[in-house]
């Protein structure tokens, strides 16, 4: 596989240089791999910090800005950032109202963010951590490191970001983040695996007539390999898995993120979204909002994921609240 890069070891730094050039509204520290709101610290506002391995763009750095994150820490491709990044980010964005860390549930991310949280607290900054674990493909999660954090992270960052922007205190922002995390479910499907710069070839090989169900966002193989399905069939499998995981059947009103993994064209993704909406509808679920696009990606992986978030009026209001980031932007 050919990649549009200067060398595997330079990929993340180069991307951050590009972000710096493209987004004057952000402060990008290429050396320390931090992307920060230009107006940070915002006095009196809870600061949201997230981050994770690179390769999922626009998540997380593309979600930095008013109404969403204050800072994102970029790790190497598919490798969580190191604690020094999070502590440095905290010192730059803490506006006196505490820091919320949004962490995807992977051993590496949790360990590194935990170490950072300890250090930040030692500096006298109030810290709360919310772990996103929305991937319903991980069924027997007692035998695993829990569920993975995937597309639902976007919901958590958006909803908690809106609450923080409104001036809510840390406990309240954390509560919103936890509610959003609890209300989120995701399921992903790959048609071919992603090519990491370090490996230079797809992390898993899929025969031309098979697909991988229940994949994560790190090029790990999924839980099951099956004969290729149509968009309608994939939507049925996906929506079935998602709805089955909610306590109520059907759940309350939903925000639906029909997400591309990076290598699937928007044309196909919209067609798939039509089937997701149909599959939800057939099962009595109510769609409050939808978002279609490449938001939580896995490099050039072909495939898609669907993330749902069950919302009440408050969460829906926070979803509709203005956001102004490179990757997500609406409202006034």
């Amino acid at each position, binding site marked *: 596989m050919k990649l549009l890069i200067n060398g595997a070891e330079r990929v993340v730094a180069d991307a951050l240089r590009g972000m710096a050039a493209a987004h004057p509204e952000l402060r990008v520290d290429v050396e320390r791999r931090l992307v920060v709101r230009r107006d940070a610290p915002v006095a009196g506002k809870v600061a949201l910090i997230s981050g994770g*391995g690179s390769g999922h763009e626009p998540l997380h750095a593309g979600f930095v800005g008013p109404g969403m994150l204050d800072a994102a820490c970029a*790790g190497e491709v*598919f490798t969580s950032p*190191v*604690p020094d990044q999070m502590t440095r980010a905290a010192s730059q964005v803490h506006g006196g109202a505490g820091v919320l860390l949004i962490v995807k549930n992977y*051993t*590496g991310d949790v360990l590194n963010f935990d*170490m950072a949280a300890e250090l930040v607290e030692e500096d006298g900054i109030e810290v709360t951590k919310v772990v996103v674990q929305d991937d319903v493909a991980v069924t027997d999660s007692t035998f695993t490191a829990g569920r993975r954090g995937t597309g639902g992270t976007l919901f958590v960052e958006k909803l908690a970001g809106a609450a923080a922007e409104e001036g809510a205190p840390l406990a309240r922002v954390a509560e919103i983040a936890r509610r959003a995390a609890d209300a989120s479910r995701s399921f992903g499907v790959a048609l071919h695996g992603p090519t990491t710069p*370090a490996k230079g070839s797809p992390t898993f090989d899929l025969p031309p007539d098979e697909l991988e169900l229940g994949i994560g966002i790190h090029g*790990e193989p999924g839980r099951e390999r099956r004969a290729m399905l149509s968009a309608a069939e994939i939507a049925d499998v996906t929506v079935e898995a998602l709805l089955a995981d909610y306590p109520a059947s059907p759940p309350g009103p939903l925000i639906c993120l029909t997400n591309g993994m990076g290598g699937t064209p928007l044309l196909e993704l919209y067609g798939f979204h039509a089937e997701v909406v149909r599959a939800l509808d057939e099962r009595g679920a109510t769609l409050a909002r939808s978002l279609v696009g490449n938001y939580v990606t896995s490099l050039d992986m072909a495939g898609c994921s669907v993330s749902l978030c069950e919302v009440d009026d408050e969460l829906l209001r926070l979803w509709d609240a203005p956001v102004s980031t490179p990757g997500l932007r609406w409202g006034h």
Partner: protein
Amino acid sequence: MAGQTAERDAAFIVEWLRASTEAVRAESDRLTELDSAIGDADHGTNMRRGFTAVMTTLDAEERATPGGVLLVAGRTLVSTVGGASGPLFGTLLRRSGKALGEAERVSDEDVRDALRAGVAAVGQLGGAALGDKTMLDALLPAVAELPDYAAAARAAEEGAKATIPLRAHKGRASYLGERSVGHEDPGAASAALLLGALFQVSR
């Protein structure tokens, strides 16, 4: 084999880490390949980045004690690797360094006790047990053989290979369920490299 009375100084630990770095560099692609099968294809790069940084740090500023060397090496791993292996291998070295304290020379029994403390800390941090298909499957049997470095290296190697038929219960590979069976755990393979390097410099 190292005698029970041998005295180990800071240079010994530096040599161990240097040999480890060489081994990790030489095996980096294999480690990534292993991680590709049941993980996210970054383990070799992670280890190479971390150990290269460790050598840069150690070459820049000398440490007088074995414990001091391990502490700074562990901290460097934590600060440069990321992922699961950064905090875990970092903790292994840091905690071992802490256990060795300020002594300028330590015995092989001290090294054994320190590494056992380090491995215990890894277990505590990551919450994994023997048989969960992690680096602990190489580390635990290895430190049980210390201070016999040859036996420890052999045990680590065997422990790593023994992860092949296991189903992972921790880390990224656990998401694969039954499909994690049949592959060697990359972190265990790395641990075997470190123990092999220790044996090599101990002779």
